[in-house]
């Protein structure tokens, strides 16, 4: 029964991806209020990878928000998304990119801009593409920022541009 439910949810997620596809990205990019950099179109593959990774958390009772943030990192400079989080809830922010050989770093900041303690996860270095996630259980409700930056394996910022997609889940 549980497997059937999970399969149903995954089918639903895929349907959502297919149905929303381009138009969802257009809406997301259209409502962006910052630099033009984040308004470039992003390959769907990054979103698929992000959702696939988030699916693992979904199996653990997390619910994935039906929306994504896709952006391009330029020379490793971080970009930030504003979110509202609730005390007592658990969150995972998952970023993914098709690019291989780079590392995405996901950081959670509180309303004042200070980094918050998170649980970090990223895929194996030799895997295809790059996937990273940050888990947080806020102690205070309110505004937070999610930062994403591109790093080389040497822990230095990437030099070229890097497309990524971020989704989040909560429970």
């Amino acid at each position, binding site marked *: 029964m549980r497997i059937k439910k999970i399969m149903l949810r995954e089918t639903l997620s895929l349907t959502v991806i297919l*149905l929303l596809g381009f138009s969802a990205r257009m809406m*997301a990019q259209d*409502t962006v209020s*910052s630099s033009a950099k984040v308004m470039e179109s992003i390959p769907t593959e990054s979103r698929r990878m992000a959702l696939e990774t988030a699916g693992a958390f979904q199996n653990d009772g997390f619910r994935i928000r039906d929306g994504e943030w896709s952006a391009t990192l330029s020379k490793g400079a971080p970009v930030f998304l504003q979110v509202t989080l609730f*005390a007592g809830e658990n969150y995972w922010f998952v970023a993914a990119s098709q690019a291989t050989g780079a590392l995405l770093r996901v950081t959670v900041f509180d309303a004042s*801009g200070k980094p918050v303690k998170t649980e970090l996860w990223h895929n194996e270095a030799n895997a295809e593409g790059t996937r990273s996630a940050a888990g947080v259980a806020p102690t205070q409700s309110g505004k937070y920022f999610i930062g994403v930056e591109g790093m080389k394996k040497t822990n230095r910022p990437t030099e070229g541009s890097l497309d990524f997609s971020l989704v989040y889940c*909560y429970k």
Partner: protein
Amino acid sequence: MDPANTPMTEPQKQAAVFLDALSVPSPGEVFAALNKACRPNWATLVTPATAPVTTERPQLALAVGVLTANGYIAVEAQDGQQVKNVGRELMALAKSLGVSQSLLGRGNSLMEFADNNDWDALADELEATENEVKNTMVEQKDRDLVTLTSAAAWLRGLEVATGVVLASDSLQGSGTLYQPELARRLAKQLDSLPDRMKRGALVPAVKRTLETTASLLENPDPKGDTLRKNYKKIYDDCSVVVKAILSSSTPAPTATPSPALSTKPPKS
């Protein structure tokens, strides 16, 4: 210093992206937090789903937000019939807005999941339906309507949350209400809508409610009675504006609710 431990700069905070689909918590997210804090009796919070009869597009967009939030309440209450009713009304609203072309499948899914009592899938489908309506609004160059839908869904969620918190002697769950920046941000977005969208009483009333809510929540450390009074004011204002959104005659909501419209928070 490790770059991961570097605080954000003020320009970085200012330039942070605000995305309707992720920066505004869905009603489901608010209710999940509320469930953890105080386990509300959702069955008592279910309200009849009735879309307004109007040709005013701003009101229709606001109603999509309120009805979606009502759908989440019905899901939390595990009331399949009510979810179906909400689904039907959402489809009717989408039709009135001229954005129903791609939504028939969604309506059918809502019915099917409700029949199967698949509450998780229903919650996912509700958010997907709301987003699909918004996407179609964007495609049809009606992006301003999206802001209205998000604001209304959030206000309806806040109305329910304040009602639940007020029903507790110790104001249990009040942590879930603390979203002043979001209220301020949504009010600012409504303020920047084109004048044609702000004609009539409804949209200005929604904006005023968001502004009042932000001011009350920004109060740094209110104690006891003041805190309860603040929450009561938020609850009353939200109730009045939500009623006006779903009203077919669109009466002008007053800043201070009239006794007739000022409902008592439901006991949960």
